[in-house]
């Protein structure tokens, strides 16, 4: 239960942000493109489920949700390079094996883009 409640709160925030953007664009929203990092604390499936509930009755009702899972990227100070890590359970450089405490990607919780159809009714 806790999981769904949490993602429902996130979905409601997402819908608010998307409606605000749609309003300023004056457009009808076909799809939302969301970027989700494995360390965002949000489960994609639970967000997708909650989203259908959260957008009901809003100006973006019926829009599709496209979730892109982002890689965990860490700065390895030993190699002086950015590395993509396979798992949040092991924050090691895949090349030299040293710990990589400095994350530069993987916590994204972002509405990246909107797929919109110009609102023709507004122009008539």
């Amino acid at each position, binding site marked *: 239960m806790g999981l769904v*409640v949490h993602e429902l709160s996130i979905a409601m925030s997402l819908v608010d942000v998307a409606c605000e*953007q749609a309003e300023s664009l004056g457009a009808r929203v076909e799809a939302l493109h969301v970027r989700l*990092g494995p360390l*965002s604390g949000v489960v994609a499936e639970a967000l997708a489920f909650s989203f259908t509930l959260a957008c009901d009755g809003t100006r973006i009702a019926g829009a599709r949700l496209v979730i892109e899972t982002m890689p965990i990227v860490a700065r390895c100070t030993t190699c002086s390079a950015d590395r993509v890590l396979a798992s*949040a359970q092991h924050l090691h450089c895949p090349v030299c094996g040293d*710990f990589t405490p400095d994350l530069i990607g993987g916590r994204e919780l972002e509405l990246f883009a*909107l797929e*919109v159809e*110009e609102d023709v009714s507004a122009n008539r």
Partner: protein
Amino acid sequence: MSPRIVEVRQNILKENDVLARELRSRFTHAGVLVVNLVSGPGAGKTALLETTLRTMRDRYRVAALTGDLATDNDAKRLARSGAPVKQISTGTVCHLDARMVSNALDGWVADDLDVLFIENVGNLVCPASYDIGEHIRVVLLSVTEGEDKPLKYPTLFNSADCALITKTDLASAVEFDRDAAYANIHEVRPELPILETSGRTGEGIDAWIAWLESHFTPPFRDRSDWKLGTP
């Protein structure tokens, strides 16, 4: 007409994060260190806080906000310490957010403190995503929970500034593997400071308070950028 894609790049929790940043800035200016305690249910947040408040209140102005789903049991326990305590009832919501904290602070003593502790809802998943305006996030792991909790819930452990291993008086009874616990914490959050406490015997409480004291002097750490990238 074919749809077009418009890049908007908005943090989904921006409303929360903006408010959290305002709260943190207000407390930084008032010289109040804000500490967010997170853990699974039953890890000992309330016991730790009760002992911490009681030990600190002779020397410092301390207070606590405590989030609880339905009861005021935790607030009652904490009030025994003699420090000001206020309850935030979250109802069915499984985490605290910046709005709940802001509302709870309305008309309260908070700006005249040295340290404000916020006891989050017992949950290892949901509180990880929510900045509530704290300077320091402390995650508790009790010896009875099992050493692999950090690997099961890397997100929460990764978002913390300190880990406290609690209920250490029970360590030998449950054959707690201390080395494994340390290794697992560092797998998900390399270099995270780890302290050990027992709310019951008071063991480790002085070291924990000393660790807090080392963060007392403003400017406090600003966690606003902990989510990486998105404003």
